[in-house]
């Protein structure tokens, strides 16, 4: 029978099909663990006298609470330190592999899986973190779970799951210069809303998606949850195989061949049907920014802050009024006139090496706008080392940015990297919720290129606002070192 990509992966993991309205029981190939959503799950195991069923399918890292400065010192915040130490004790007790602060493979959990080659097509991947959808970029069925489910997977390596619906999101054509995969996903969320994906697994397809690098695809799948969908997927192709080959945990020899042969079958059949379909034209997209307090409240950078009085739907109007009040914005203000205090470049959405390279390309030879704080936080220690090997850190520091250690950092402000009340940020992260980046903090979600241009000018900007020479390609990356000094000077 014809099937979609998501249905194929689902069916390949059926331990037991539910009867009489029971959910299906699915096997989980890879369980990623971090310090925030796991302590109560391990405690549950301990109380019930249960072991971790498959430590060899489980991996843990420290990311949400970790400081990005002084990582060689004890963590100053006592509750953060306790939570990290609890994870270390649990990992020891239950035999779970852990990448601790200071380890080259420590970093945001959604970077650690892919960079080690553990994330692969056709897997089921779960983690007590909603941005687990990131791993769907490889053609895995990957989704966030709550702590009760973390305990369930630790104990049984399975999850009971109710069936989902499927939604195709087709992005035709090619992105114009200056627009990135972040702008694609922000435009999708603005179009279908923060609840538009509820109950669905999204599958991103079309020419624009196919031509994206693995890392750019991860950015899109990462924010599926911001559209309400637990998971987003992209069918694996040569780009995927190329990314995986040779990574530490990628299959080798005959296993690799068998895997690739199977992975090539992981695509939606031509005669399969989706429960819903959405189509976007990439050529119509431009850099997108959010103006409000949920990720669906976004507009092209060339637009103005909305005027709530012109919004017909009462709930939406009230939400817009509240959002503008919180954000301290006047209706009708051009988005380009909004001045920021902080630029945050990082997170599981946009803290990977390609993001840092594109930012460095824009920042090279420039200095930051007066009074703006610029934070660059790589998504993992390995990414940080790679960036340093390419000399990107020097560009950031000469620009006036702070070059930090890896972690979730200001994306959610669980560590000391936070916005002060009223402080405004352009952020490459994924959520602009009230208080997300610090109590009273105001967040505009942007792409790395918009973040970089904003850091130069001090107001929300795109690279088109900078005097860049013609022919500088900022949106595609070949994965090779940037060799910054060999590039034509951008100034």
């Amino acid at each position: 029978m014809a099937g979609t990509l998501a249905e194929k992966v689902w069916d390949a993991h059926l331990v037991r099909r539910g009867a009489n309205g029971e959910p299906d029981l699915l096997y989980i190939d890879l369980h990623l663990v971090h310090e925030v959503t796991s302590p109560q799950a391990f405690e549950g195991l301990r109380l019930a006298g249960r072991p971790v069923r498959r430590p060899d399918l489980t991996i843990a890292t420290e990311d949400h609470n970790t400081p990005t400065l002084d990582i060689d010192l004890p963590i100053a915040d006592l509750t953060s330190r306790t939570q990290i130490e609890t994870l270390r004790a649990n990992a020891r007790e239950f035999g779970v592999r852990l990448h601790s602060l200071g380890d080259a493979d420590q970093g945001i959990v959604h970077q650690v899986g892919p960079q080690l080659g553990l994330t692969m097509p056709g897997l089921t991947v779960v983690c007590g973190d909603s941005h687990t959808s990131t791993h769907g970029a490889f053609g895995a069925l990957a989704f966030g779970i709550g702590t009760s489910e973390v305990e369930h997977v630790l104990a049984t390596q399975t999850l009971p799951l109710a069936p989902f619906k499927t939604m195709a999101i087709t992005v035709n054509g090619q992105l114009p210069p200056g627009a990135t995969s972040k702008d694609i996903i922000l435009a999708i969320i603005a179009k279908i809303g923060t609840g538009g994906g509820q109950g669905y697994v999204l599958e991103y397809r079309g020419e624009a998606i196919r031509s994206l690098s693995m890392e750019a695809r991860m950015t899109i799948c990462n924010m599926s949850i911001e559209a309400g969908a637990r998971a987003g997927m992209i069918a694996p192709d040569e780009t995927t195989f190329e990314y995986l080959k040779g990574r530490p945990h990628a299959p080798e020899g005959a296993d690799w061949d068998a895997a690739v042969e199977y992975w090539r079958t992981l695509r939606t059949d031509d005669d399969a049907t989706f429960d819903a379909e959405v189509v976007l034209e990439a050529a119509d997209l431009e850099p997108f920014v959010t103006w409000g307090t949920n990720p669906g409240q976004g507009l092209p950078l060339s637009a103005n802050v909305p005027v709530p009085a012109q919004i017909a739907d009462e709930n939406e109007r009230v939400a817009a009024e509240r959002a503008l009040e919180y954000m301290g914005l006047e209706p009708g203000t051009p988005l380009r006139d909004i001045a920021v205090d902080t630029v945050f470049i990082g997170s599981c959405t946009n803290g990977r090496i390609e993001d840092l390279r594109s930012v460095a390309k824009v920042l090279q030879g420039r200095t930051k706008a007066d009074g703006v704080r610029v934070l660059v936080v790589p998504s993992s220690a390995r990414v940080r080392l790679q960036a340093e090997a390419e000399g990107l850190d020097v560009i950031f520091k000469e620009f006036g940015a702070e070059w930090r250690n890896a972690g979730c950092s200001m994306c959610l402000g669980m560590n000391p990297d936070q916005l002060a009340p009223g402080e405004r940020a352009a952020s490459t992260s994924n959520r602009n919720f009230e208080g997300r980046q610090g109590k009273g903090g105001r967040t505009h979600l942007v792409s790395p290129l918009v973040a970089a241009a904003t850091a130069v000018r001090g107001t929300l900007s795109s690279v088109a606002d900078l005097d860049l020479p013609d022919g500088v390609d900022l949106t595609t990356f070949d994965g090779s070192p940037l060799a910054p000094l060999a590039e034509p000077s951008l100034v």
Partner: protein
Amino acid sequence: MEKFTTHTGVGVPLRRSNVDTDQIIPAVYLKRITRTGFEDALFAAWRGDPSFVLNQDAYKTGSVLVAGPDFGTGSSREHAVWALKDYGFKVVLASRFADIFRGNSGKQGLVAGIVAQEDVELLWKVLETKPGTEVTVDLEHRTAQADDVTVPFQIDDYTRWRLMEGLDDIGLTLSHEEDIAAFEAQREPWRPRTLPAKHLPTVPVEPARPVRA
């Protein structure tokens, strides 16, 4: 888990849409390693505002929350459900819930009932005109009643059954041990294992320089 059949308690109208889990419980409260004691964290930012609904005497003891659409969006933190439960809520009613939040609720014995938006408006009207009105939630018949308004709500059959029986998921799954073991026996060798650990060459990690003052 305690069995749930019916519950009667003060209804709290929360006239907001897109109540994300960062609003239900801000990230700073997630550093705790316990599963209880989160009542102070519930809606922490909003509770600083004297006009917030839970700061009004009539609603303080509420246990049935009636919220706008897209409740529980964002982060997967189960702490959001723990905070609602620790405060005393037994039921949340809204026209749409984020998937992960709804799943977490089911695991923790918090009823997340889907009510049509026009029925939410009816409940809001009763609860706002007569603050302190109790709502009776009947899980067996899937209805919520406040004063003279009775509205139906949806909850999937399986979750409803588990809540009414007070069943623990892990125990249920472990009763299928044979199926799990049979599945494991036929998994392909290319599927990844985290152990033994494989790495790129080990590299010393230098800490970032402290920020210049």
